[in-house]
């Protein structure tokens, strides 16, 4: 199979529910299927509480589905050992969250390099790549700053650079512009899409913004626990 046709993520029959405080069960995902191919970008829209973030957590195996299977690059995750899952997650997946989640004790460069440390790669080559990524997101002059000194937009740009540090096959962005003003959100989203293209990374973008969603190759809506536009 050609690189472009390679399936980097496959989710089949994903079901996930939670117990409500009153003891009743809330089914969030009801048999969701998804395939993501290499280099593909898709957006995930839906109302708050519709299960978008839950779906991202499940397909990244940060949360286990009640039923269904998830495969990364053709390897079924439930058959992998914890060590392999962590390794695959570090090497093949990238995350950008709404709240940035930068480590306050580390400066900008160290935060980006943290992803490389996870896979035991800290060398001048990796440091160079981190600096290149930070230059691409326009933070080449702020690499030794602590996150506390950065604006929200700048922090999110650091988070984007970190998510791409290990050249992941798939990047998952969970409302990356949710905490930003309109203008900054526009800049950040532009950078995110551009860098994913440059790095040939697939992208799953969770967003409430239809305009941002329209810039991806495929738009999915999560309603009633299922995608309204299944592949």
């Amino acid at each position: 199979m050609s690189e472009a046709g390679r399936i980097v993520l496959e989710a089949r029959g994903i079901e996930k529910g939670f117990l409500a405080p009153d003891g009743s069960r809330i089914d969030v995902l009801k048999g969701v299927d998804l395939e993501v191919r290499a280099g593909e970008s898709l957006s995930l829209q839906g109302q708050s509480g519709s299960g978008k973030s839950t779906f991202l957590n499940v397909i990244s195996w940060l949360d286990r589905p009640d039923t269904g299977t998830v495969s990364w690059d053709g390897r079924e995750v439930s058959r992998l050992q914890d060590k392999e899952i962590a390794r695959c997650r570090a090497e093949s997946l990238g995350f950008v969250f709404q709240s940035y989640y930068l480590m306050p004790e580390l400066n900008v460069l160290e935060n980006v390099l943290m992803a490389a440390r996870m896979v035991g790669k800290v060398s001048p080559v990796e440091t160079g790549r981190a600096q290149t990524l930070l230059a691409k997101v326009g933070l080449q002059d702020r690499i030794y700053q602590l996150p506390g000194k950065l604006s929200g937009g700048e922090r999110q740009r650091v988070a984007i650079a970190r998510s791409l540090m290990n050249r992941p096959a798939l990047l998952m962005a969970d409302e990356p512009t949710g905490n930003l003003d309109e203008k900054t959100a526009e800049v950040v989203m532009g950078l995110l899409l551009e860098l994913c293209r440059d790095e040939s990374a697939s992208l799953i973008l969770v967003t409430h913004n239809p305009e941002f969603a329209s810039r991806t190759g495929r738009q999915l809506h999560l309603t009633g626990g299922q995608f309204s536009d299944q592949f």
Partner: protein
Amino acid sequence: MPWPLYLALKQLFPTGRWFSFYSAISILGVMLGVMVLLIVQTVMNGFGDKIRENIVARDADIRIQGDILYQWKPLLEELAARKEIKAATPFAEGVVMVKRGNIPFMPYFRGVDVGLEGGVYPLAEFLKNVADAEGKAPVHDETGKLDGFQSFSMQCSLDDLDDETIILGRDLAANLNAFRGDTIEVFTPLMLEKAKRDEVLLPREFEVAGAFQSGWYEVDSNTAIVTLRAMQELYGLGRGVHGLALKLEKGHNAEKVARELEGVFKERHLPFHAVSWLKKNESFLFFLGMEKWVMFFIMIFIILVASFSIAVTLSVSVLRKTREIGLLCSIGARQAQIAQTFCLQSVAIGVIGVGMGIVGALLALYYRNRIVGMFLSIFHAQDAFYELYGFEGIPASYSVQDFVLVSIFTMVLTTMAGLLPAIRASRLKPAEALRSE
């Protein structure tokens, strides 16, 4: 460097800052605990060693005792010829009453063989110790009125000791207000024996030849030295002695040699006992050792409090960093590695705290006399303090074993303090951690 260690160190010593406030408090706690433990242990060792030294100086390594020994000379020669025995000397000793003016005292008199005594007891050293100790005697005019004080040395040598003279412990001399050339009267138990038979024995007079100073107040305030012959007369021993004192060559265990000698005496049916200084002071030495460990036990609680503060600090850290823990999972951290990160923080706090505690303890011990002197001078209590303990300065005896024990003990406690928060952190579910507020 593995990333859990890297992150642990970064959380303790963040980029752009020397250290975080929480880590500084925890390290300080461990440091103080280790410092106090080591200082107490080292000073207690010092006290113990000093007391042991003084016991040996007073009692010799082994004493051969039994009934009054009349035929002691052949035994002395035989013992002195043994390779493990460095020197041997006879002694006669006991309590007497001395009186000077209206001041009575009940000191311990020791009759010594001037020629042999120096081989067993460091008498020459004790005599030299009073080289600078000046006596001040009141001077009266012809009418008996006080006419000032005259200073003179109390120093003497063993050559000054004869059957008519006496060497007093420095503090005994001071208590008796006795100076060189003064006369003191001595009353002995023999006088009571004579009185029973309606005989009168007059008190014996001795001229003060000088003073000695062993450095141990209990000895210096309660002991006087006379010749063996004088003591034999005071106690009516004839040519007999109370026993023989032995000094061993270095490296020999006093208790072991004493047991060997006991065996020899038993074999020959001799009515003597060999008592080592260890055996004679067994109870005292046992309590001395116990005291050290009781102090250790009490001081442990300081380390426990410090460890508790580490556990609290790290638990708060786990709470504060819940979302970061979620992030770490999302970028490839395993639960065990998350636990390692927090556990390594407590290990690092322990290592740094122990290191700083050792340095702090060594510094405090090096300047111990200056520090204690400073505190005592505030309360004008130097003299009382040294008189109470009988030592010149605070003794200290460094024991590698104690330093290693305290370090390992502290490391174990601080590591355990980090385990609970570490386990808690590792059990966080990544998705829930990311959602947490």
